[in-house]
């Protein structure tokens, strides 16, 4: 087994972990935000518009983290900096 092969295999594992754990965390975060927005809307239906705006901003900030993870994962997949050419 060459060291490049080892690095590529480990990179594949890392890609799986990055995308999977990133999606897991962001999913939990999005769920918490959305559930609170639903609760808030049920309690105060007239606040729905402003709550939705705040929700989209919060979700956008949360979603940035898994997107960064996916970006690093894709770097590892398609332009792996560790592999020597």
């Amino acid at each position, binding site marked *: 087994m060459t060291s490049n092969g080892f690095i590529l295999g480990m990179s594949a594992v890392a890609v799986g972990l990055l995308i999977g754990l990133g999606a897991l965390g962001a999913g939990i975060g999005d769920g918490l935000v959305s559930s609170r927005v639903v609760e808030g809307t049920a309690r105060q239906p007239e606040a729905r518009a402003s709550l939705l705006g705040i929700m989209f*901003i919060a979700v956008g900030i949360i979603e940035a983290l898994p997107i960064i993870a996916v970006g690093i994962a894709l770097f590892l997949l398609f*332009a792996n900096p560790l592999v020597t050419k």
Partner: protein
Amino acid sequence: MLSASQVSSEPLVHPIIGKGLLAINVDTVRNSVIVAVLLVIIGVVVRRQMRPGKPDGLQNLLEYFVSAIRGLVRQTLGDRPIRILPIVITMFAFIFTCNLIGLVPGFKSPTNDVNTTIALAFFAIGLVHFFSVRARGPAGYLKHFFSMVNSPIGRVLLGVLEVFQEFVKPFTLALRLYFNIFVGELLLAVILVLLGFASPVFNGLFWIPFSVFIGLIQAFIFVMLTISYVNQGTEVHDDLEGSGAGAH
């Protein structure tokens, strides 16, 4: 199945002139200039056929964005005398158009280049410090970092963290925007390989509308964070010893 050679490396690679630190990413510069010219043209056209009181079409759309951001600025900064609105609207228009132009075939978003977003973020944070120094004066500006809590040792420790945070801010601001747009465009290419003939349907129905949405949200978040950083930086509270220190 999916190999690196199948995916077009086009979104990853920028054609470069020059070497090292002086290298210029040609496509980024070209697309930035295109975006800027486009915005100026839109501005001139809308200005020419402006009908005050009876907005329609494009004017309506632009007025919606302007009033939304103006509302945000007023809501955040209150009636403090900080003239940040024009520059913030310009940043929003530029970032949003940059995010959208990457979805047009043949163009790439200038924001999918980390240089663009780092430059924008440094500009935004520079703005924050400029307004901060102007609102507090140089001495107050420096003292602010070390006035979080009351105990002296806590002040030093938290102050170091505060200063460190000032260095981290532009990078989080830049990387959030960069990776969102970059991954969006790269996934277009990946979907093309993974789904084959079905990819235009998937891209057209799902991914491109989602990318437009992401572009809007990210531009808005960038601007909103800039405004709230300016707000944090220009708060003048007379809490030299005591009560207001816990306000954060």
